[in-house]
């Protein structure tokens, strides 16, 4: 398939369809369903310096056209990733990108340093937008100053492609985007989940153990498209768009709003083959509209 190649900084993607962290495990979970090599990239589960058990059950509540989650970055820590998971996934014929989270700037830096040494790890995604951890996470992504600071410090130790994942739970997402761009981020990805909550009316108890959680799925898509469009016009670095993408039309919509590439998230749970179907759908769309390259329509909404 031609015309699908895009660049995120120096990183060449064979196509603009990637899968979002926290919805795709380490890729291996999906290997029975799809050829992982057909994806532009895979963002693996949020990884922290120390292992984390995550939040108590219940961690999930279905909503109309979406779901709330409060997983809380359950993972076995970066050392376990480097020793046990990286060797299994490093030879997949796609970019494996680790989503890095932490409670302190030092955590992010230490985690990024360990990942910088891995040959086949071309990029990381700094998660400054997880709404489900008590310390750090989204706190870094909701203030310009802390978003800039964590980006600056990680930039010093991570020479490869640095993507910063932004929180939508802010008044002006473009300020944060400009802040991390100024500190050397190669790209921004957005949006992470929206802070939300749900209550069981019979028991009058919250549906999540943490009361609030992150909302994802098609219900957030119009808000995510708007934020991608705003950020596209505010920064020069590439924008990776996500938020409720279910099919190729959704992907094209994000691209027209300004996304150079997209991530498929929650919908992977419903159709584990959705991401590769999207690659074909985008290809056919380009052919039908006589567009030589997907790059030609990034941000090209007609007004």
């Amino acid at each position: 398939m031609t015309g699908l190649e895009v660049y995120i900084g120096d990183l060449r993607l064979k196509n603009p369809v990637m899968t979002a962290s926290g919805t795709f495990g380490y890729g291996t979970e999906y290997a029975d369903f799809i050829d992982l090599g057909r994806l532009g990239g895979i963002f693996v589960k949020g990884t922290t310096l120390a292992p984390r058990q995550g939040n108590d059950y219940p961690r999930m509540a279905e909503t109309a056209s979406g779901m709330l989650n409060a997983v809380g970055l359950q993972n076995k820590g970066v050392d376990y990733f480097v020793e046990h998971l990286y060797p299994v996934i490093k030879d997949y014929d796609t970019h494996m990108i680790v989503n890095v989270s932490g409670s302190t700037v030092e955590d992010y830096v230490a985690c990024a340093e360990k990942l910088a040494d891995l040959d086949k790890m071309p990029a990381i995604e700094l998660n400054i937008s997880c709404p489900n951890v008590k310390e750090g996470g989204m706190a870094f992504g909701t203030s310009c100053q802390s978003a800039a600071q964590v980006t600056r410090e990680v930039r010093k130790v991570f020479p490869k492609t640095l993507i910063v994942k932004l929180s939508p739970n802010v008044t002006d997402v473009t300020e944060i985007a400009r802040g991390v761009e100024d500190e050397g981020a190669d790209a921004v990805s957005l949006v992470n989940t929206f802070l939300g909550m749900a209550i069981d009316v019979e028991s009058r108890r919250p549906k999540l153990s943490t009361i609030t959680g992150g909302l994802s799925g098609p219900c957030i898509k119009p808000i995510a498209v708007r934020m991608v469009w705003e950020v596209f016009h505010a920064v020069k670095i590439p924008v990776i768009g996500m938020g409720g993408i279910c099919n190729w039309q959704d992907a094209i919509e994000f691209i027209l709003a300004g996304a150079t590439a997209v991530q498929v998230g929650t919908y992977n749970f419903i159709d584990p083959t959705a991401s590769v179907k999207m690659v074909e759908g985008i290809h056919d769309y380009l052919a039908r509209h006589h567009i030589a390259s997907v790059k030609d329509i990034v941000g090209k909404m007609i007004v």
Partner: protein
Amino acid sequence: MQLLDFTVRSNEALNDQNHLIKVAPSGNEILPEMQPGQFVQILVDNSPHVFLRRPISVNFVDKEKNEIWLLIRKIGEGTEKICSIHQGEIMNLIYPLGNSFTLPERNGKYLLIGGGVGTAPMLFLGKKIKEGGIEPEFLLGGRSAKDILQRTDFERYGRLYCTTEDGSFGEKGFVTHHSVLKEKKYDFIYTCGPKPMMVAVANYAHEHGIECEASLENLMACGFGACLCCVEKTVRGNICTCTEGPVFNIKELFW
């Protein structure tokens, strides 16, 4: 694991709340080997409020007919929608998912305790145990007689004991009150049903030093280990019910 379209061969209402739906692959696919305790994730189409698939345990596998049986209780919009499916319509499944009950490795007395729609995986488990040369016994509980489902199917594989809360069938009370638990000494108990029932069964097993496995039904999003939503707190930490379970030895659980 596969993602596959199935065609509904039949959809029978067993009572006002429970349906038995039999499905077979829509194409020429032969069903893979499945184990008792495993489940499927059903796509619920065209329902705006139902976003996620619904995990449903395998009730039975009829290899000759290449059919999976699904016993489904209508408890909300998703399961209502699934139960309204017609013969000949398509049902998309991700399957087979999860681990399975441990089949007997030696002779002994095996009791399968199910409550409500939690009896579903016990039928397939009973068949597998019987195929292994051991006759299992079943203890099924429900609110009243009409809630004791598939009785003749169960009786094909072993002795059946029942309890109902209103006393309309079998002994009156909960499964853990049944006299057979006082009269006989079992070597292994398998259980699936409402959590309070499974906790009571687990306590009985603990007290009597009986090995026991329980099948959990934690809320799930993906069903195959990607989202980490369905975790159960165990002696091994928070682990996914969908991949490490749904069947757990009660020694691993904190209840």
